[in-house]
């Protein structure tokens, strides 16, 4: 298995030694944990090392602090972009790019005669218009990526979004969706969400049913998702 520390090239002692810190913090998988335990039964050095690590961890945690977030958060909040994040910003109407080339205060603004500015602006205008015409069909089709963008087709067609655990088997996903009485109308989105439609008046029971499933990471109504 890729990414495992246990290796046939290492002795059981070496493997156990390497894994001790994570044996101690309880994050090894069952196989690894069993191998470490088995080795430690016959290895005094590893038992001693584990005790040492335990002391280290307790010493390390003792110096804990629980700082208050308020002041630092207060200094960050004014830096948050007023509308929001990347994807929504990309979804907003594009600005005419050529206008930004000659801002009044820019150091190069006085270098070009007016006619060059007009010609360049016209060129950019034509390029932009052609580019826009080419991009337009894709753009309409790609809006499903923008889960949070109000007014997108996904929002118009669906009632809620569900995100499954990435490890969820397909048959489980199908079972859960059938059991909830929901129909997939779009997705997966960029956030691995599926947009679902439910019979009118059944939104709340479907949400409750989905949220009760351990394999469902998120189930949220699209209306609430869209509100800032």
């Amino acid at each position: 298995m890729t990414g495992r520390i246990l290796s046939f090239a290492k002795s059981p002692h070496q493997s156990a030694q390497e894994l001790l810190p994570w044996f101690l913090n309880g994050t090894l998988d069952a196989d690894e944990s069993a191998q470490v335990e088995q080795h430690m039964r016959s290895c005094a050095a590893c038992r001693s090392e584990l005790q040492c690590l335990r002391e280290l961890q307790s010493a390390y945690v003792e110096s804990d602090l629980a700082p208050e977030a308020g002041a630092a958060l207060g200094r960050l909040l004014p830096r948050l972009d007023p509308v929001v994040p990347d994807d929504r910003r990309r979804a907003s109407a594009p600005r005419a790019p050529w206008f930004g080339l000659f801002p009044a205060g820019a150091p190069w603004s006085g270098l070009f005669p007016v006619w060059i500015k007009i010609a360049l602006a016209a060129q950019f205008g034509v390029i932009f218009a052609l580019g826009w015409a080419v991009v337009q069909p894709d753009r309409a089709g790609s809006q499903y990526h923008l889960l949070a963008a109000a007014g997108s087709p996904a929002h118009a067609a669906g009632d809620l979004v569900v995100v499954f655990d990435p490890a969820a088997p397909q048959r489980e996903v199908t079972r859960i969706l059938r059991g909830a009485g929901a129909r997939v109308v779009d997705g997966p989105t960029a956030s691995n969400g599926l947009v679902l439609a439910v019979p009118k008046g059944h939104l709340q029971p479907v949400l409750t049913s989905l949220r009760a499933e351990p394999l469902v990471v998120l189930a949220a109504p699209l209306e609430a998702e869209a509100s800032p």
Partner: protein
Amino acid sequence: MQQGQFTGPAADPRRSKERSADEAVLLQRIAAGDRSAFEALYRGYYPRLTRFLERVIRRPHSVEEVLNDAMLVVWRKAASFNGRSKVSTWIFSIAYRKALKALKRFDEPVESDDEAFESTLPGPEGQLMQRQLCDQLLEEIARMSFEHRTVIELTYYHGCAYKEIADIMACPVDTVKTRMFHARRRLRLALADRREEFQ
């Protein structure tokens, strides 16, 4: 989501999974521009990230700046979280990269010269780990490289699995293992020196 209650190594796996699901919901709301969700996530992570950054960059006056830079990325990139890792792994990886960037700005070496620390001494017995030894250990950790401090911190305090640490530090799991091995060897040496002082 519970806020600001993280005070020790990671809790049991089930609780950890529940927390990650709660945080995934917060991220979805943040992606939609929900400031209250961001504040909740910020308050939940502030103690953990403060502790992590204090230990790895060792410059108390820069901790807030690095932390806020990291959380600003969370605000802006929430929609790009794909659910393939835990939310905490994603956020810590952002904080790690910001810390790394800050250290480079401080002109501090990121790699260490651990090969200089050779030890043949056996591991000390737990009974000898008294308060002075604990302090000695913490001082020793503070003298380690950024990479080694990070592995120690994420393992012993934040309860991360080695695979999570590899994700956070964007390196192979074997590198995590090697860094931990060197860090432990160095700590054993420091403990042995201290024990000799007592004798």
